[in-house]
């Protein structure tokens, strides 16, 4: 059986973390491909409903960065 892989939904601030994730690519860093990024205009935009929706859709973890 394949090892369990988490599914992570991340909400990244357009102005910092989203750009940092881009820079990780420019720098050709590598990380596991189990993350799905939702770009948000600011972490201030985060609503508890987004966490709940992500978890309900099967996310094992939700990561907010900004």
């Amino acid at each position, binding site marked *: 059986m394949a090892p369990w892989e988490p599914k992570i939904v991340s909400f990244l601030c357009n102005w910092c973390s989203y750009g*940092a994730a881009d820079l990780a690519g*420019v720098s050709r860093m*590598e990380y596991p491909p189990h993350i*799905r990024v939702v770009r948000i205009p600011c972490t201030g935009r985060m609503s508890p409903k987004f966490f709940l929706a992500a978890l309900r859709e099967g996310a094992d973890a939700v990561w907010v960065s900004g």
Partner: protein
Amino acid sequence: MNINLITCAQVEKIEGARGRFKATVRKSPRYIDPDKCTSCGDCAEVCPVVLPDAYDQGMSLRKATYKKYAQAIPGAFAIQKSDVAPCKLACPAGLNVQGYVQMVGAGKYKEALEIIMQELPLPGVLGRICPHGCEDACRRCQVDDPIAIRDLKRLAADEFDPRDIKIDCLPARREKVAIVGSGPAGLAAAYHLARRGIRSTIFEALPQAGGMLRVGIPDHRLPPEVLDREIELITNLGVTIKTSTPLGPDLGIDDLFAQGFAAVYLALGAHRGIKLGIPGEKAEGVRQGVDFLREVNLSGKAAVGRRVAIIGGGNVAIDVARSAVRLGAGEVQIIYRRTRSEMPAWEEEIAAAEDEGARLTYLSAPQEILTQDGRVVGLRCIRMELGAADSSGRRRPIPIPGSEYDIEVDQVIPAIGQQPDLSAIENVDGLEFSRWGTTEVDPLTYATGRAGVFAGGDLQTGPWVAIGAIAAGREAAESIERYLDGRDMAAGRTAVVNENPDYRPITEDIPRQPRAAMPTLSAAARRGNFDEVELGYETEAGRAEAHRCLNCAYCCECFQCVEACGVQAVTLETHAQKPETVELEIGSVILAPGFSPFDPSRFDSYNYAGHPNVITSMEMERILSASGPTQGHLVRPSDHGEPKKIAWFQCVGSRDLNRCDNAYCSSVCCMYAIKEAVIAKEHAGDALDCAVFFMDMRTHGKDFERFYDNAREKTGVRFIRSRVHTIDPVAGSDDLAVRYLDNDGRMQTEVFDMIVLSVGLETPPDGIALAERLDVALTPGNFAKTDAFAPVSTSVEGIFTCGAFQGPRDIPQAVVDASAAAAAAGEILSNARNTLTRTEEVVPETDVAGERPRIGVFVCNCGINIAGVVDVPAVRDYAATLPYVEYVTDNLYSCSQDTQDTMARIIREKGLNRVVVAACTPKTHEPLFQETLMNAGLNKYLFEMANIRNQDSWVHKNNPQLATAKAKDLVRMAVSKVALTEPLKEAELAVNPVAMVVGGGVSGLSAAQSLARQGYETHVIEKSAHLGGNARNLYRTPDGERIAPRLSALIADVQQAPNIHLHLETELKQVEGFVGNFKSTLVCNGDGTLLEHGVVVLATGAAPLEPEEYGYGSDPRIVTSLELDRRFIDDDAGLNHLETAVFIQCVGSREPQRPYCSRVCCTHAIDNALELKRRRPEMNVYILYRDIRTYGEREYLYSKAREAGVIFIRYSLGNKPQVRAGSRKVVVAVTDHVLGRPLEIETDLLCLSSAVVPTAVEGLAQMFKVPLNDDGFFVEKHAKLGPSEFATDGVFLCGLAHYPKPIDEAVAQGRAAASRAVTLLAREKIHTSGNVARSDPFYCSSCGVCVAICPYAAATFIKEGPNSGKAEINPVLCKGCGLCVASCRSGAIHLRGFDNDQIFAQLFALNEEAL
């Protein structure tokens, strides 16, 4: 759009005057078209040239094709080139040596051959026998041994069959050319003619083709099959070789013309051996070397004697000797008249001959061949000695009289040279010959005196190297083509000359690496056969050898990038770009050439050059950076181990006149060292010990003192006030022992894992040169000379400056100065505003309201950047299955201009009303694609990007399957979201072109002056009856200039400006409106007036603290700094008779209740101390301080004060001075920091350097909804990048209300605020973003959370009408952050573009089965 960025450029000169300059700019090529480059990096991927990455301080590697750093602007790549490499220059045929060496290094043998065979059709042959002049020119010789260039050429030909290289030939022409001789010259001519579409026939006298390559070089050096193979590649091009067909009575040159050949190339070579000219040469047993070798090479055998004497010292002599040994000669002796070091033969050949058993006799020359019965029986020789140098530079051999001796030999083989056999051509009309028997030609075209007849190779030069003959053959081909075309044969054919060539510097740190040894057959295995001796490199050894190349010319012109580039941004044409000179018509100039970090390798004492774990702060910055060489892992260079103890040494290259000439303080190093120490501890955890060794801690910037306090108290960074004595490497480890004197004067030794040198800032040499060219005056520290009231003006009118060129400074100050310089430049240009600006054409927007979504999905390959990992066709096909998707396609490069045009066409043709681009990142490319939508008449908000490059293919390259799955998910999420997007409007708003400045101090007046000069109506509101603020109480600037006259001039200028309206004794009562349309109520003497304005500048200033300690107020001898200034201004004669004066610093500053540095007081006190000393040199002047903070070139004053005898005594916060006012003197008690003993100073004057405190402006802050910090200063938009403006649009900031600052900085910030304001005013209209929040009053519960929470003051309560009391969001002020949306408890607020349903749509599409 209106910034024209000219990169790789240098300003050569600027002529003319303010408002009408002409600048001459030298623009170096970047070799890649920035307009076409998509920054995909494919060119760098294939570039073989690896160089240290200067951006990473040499701690990582980059390619010659590169982008300096990820965020560089423009984002396009560039190629670094310098002059033609010395190896290429040294090659007679001009082979691109560096190019093929790099290709071999990359294991690209085919590509190496393609480069070689541009010039040379015989790579395997020359790879064995070329005398490699290139290796003599190789600059690696300066490090250790030259690159084994020839052997690497051979490796390429060993690893890839040259016959399989595709050689492009032009279509065959009608004319045919006859070539006489199939040696290297003839073969090269045939090859290059064939590529030009000109067929040729080679006539060869001997039974086999190859000329001297065939018959002059024995097989153990050049196996015949190698030659055969490479001749075959030439005949494969349609060249005919007729062997055993010599020129002669039956075949003359006329005959060739008669046979229809349009031109003849003579390349007969030099095959006739030169006679010794001594008696007995006709005897049996005497054989010419060339004849001997010819026989060996054609038949595999030749008669050899028992004892063979070979005369000569060249390669032919050696070849004869090594062949004779192989053929079984008993004893082989080479006789040479000079010594070994003068021998023309290669050293490795001589050594091989010796290994194989040949013997060499030096300093001996034959005099007579002794014969018996017509046969050789011996040789009479004479000993020689070396005399003076001859014309060849070698010492001339001179016979020693009477030293004759005989040796017994039975075969003598002279090999002292050869010459052309001219018998077949000596009578041809038009041909002329030199006295050495060579054929005369035009040196450039190789044309002989007879039309259509050309000559080259040894026939023309005499015996020379094969590569020279090949070059001659190629040149002849060029001439023959031109001859057949009837073109000028000589035009444009001059040789490349490199005078003072510019090459990659050879530095000390290039590691020595021996040249790879060529594997050879053992001497024993060579016996009796002609097997090849040199076996060729193994690939690994060869590639390692190639990597020794220093890449002198940077780019090696292998043109792999040209192949790799999918958008033709780099081509052979761009590679050939030349520098150009651009002339610019300009009105103002701003110089911002920046600084270079001090190079500490000049200091032996720090061991920087010698120890890997002593690094500079710039290196530390890169090590700490997530995008740095270690990806943010804190490791030390020597062993990549995690350090446990790190020390920072301050003032390296600053405040140090003794060793580095930089007497100034670099201003920024204290703060960056603390920052680095804190970040290092964040990275490595609390166990890491960070110690900062310093003299004075200079954290004089806004919020810097707090940072210092936190680093010390909370983060646990140690601060040690000591200048380090010595650093010694700890034996047996990579650690460093630091010796220093502690606070109590005891010598301490502490061991650290690494040391960071906090290097200072200095103007780079090219910055100094630029200043000299432009006649811009510099300060003693080599910074641009400016003046306190004109802080960004250089000594040349109309030329301004900003940044570190103006003096060492941090980012906020540099940004302030940049804005100020822009304002100053704009003041000159304001009449021409908008005359040269460019605007975009607008396509009418299609109304898509109510339409069912018709989504187009464009999936980008990004060359191979995405397609190399993600299965792009699969993603594309998958996208086609998603709801509402009407069209899918994939593009090679979605961002290239032609694709943009295609996309716009498709959007129109297919009637698409939503677009998804799955490509790179919206951060860089969303605006571009939105423009495409607009060009197709679509609202730009009907767009979404799926980031399948930066956040997918680039980060999951080892997992293509999951990367493809992720790409599909991201596309599905984007499609789900885009279906819910709506066309959004960007509201337009007129800007009232009137400015209001609150505060009439120096900063506010400077802002007003600049606004007015730029043509804007400006109102200055001042609550007092006077203009000038605190400056009215200041005596002079640190430069020694009196402030009063300058202030009067500024006030007069403002008073006279027709578009400045002064409102004295006026206060602001109420403010309504927002950016572009403010309505402010001004109250003067109880009368209120309404002022409508578009922008406001807050310059409300600060005040001196009234001290509550040190006996202030109780005794007239105890004064504040400003009170002392007043006495200077009034020229109080009482000051001239003081016996003693004491200054106490940090009165009210850097205290728990006021934890900031007031920035100006140290300089002020020192300047005042100097003024007292000037008035009465014998006066005792004491300054009691905590840290002296004379930042920048203010440091000179500190030095001057110490020289003048001012006594500096340090005290600590816990042990402040005590003041007692006695009747005769004021007594100040303080503990002496050097002696550690209490000291009492009796003084006539005690001056308290009291803090600068903000004026109470809460009301004002409320009115404009701008924040104040804990200290009461305004909080700017961004501490670094937005120091002169607020987050609230249309409200700007300058002067002491921002933070304490001296006059020059206050003036600069006044202008900076004006500059920022003008960016709004000049637009005349503001366009809001579509991505803004909107509140639905129906749902709003008037709770006010949004109003309270909005950082931009965009949310307010509606005041009138049916919705009165509900919240509304002003779209003009809204930045679309969504804070209000998330906090709205009623669900009344929606954020357009990021609304709940859109984000939910993305989440609901997380799983494939959801749709």
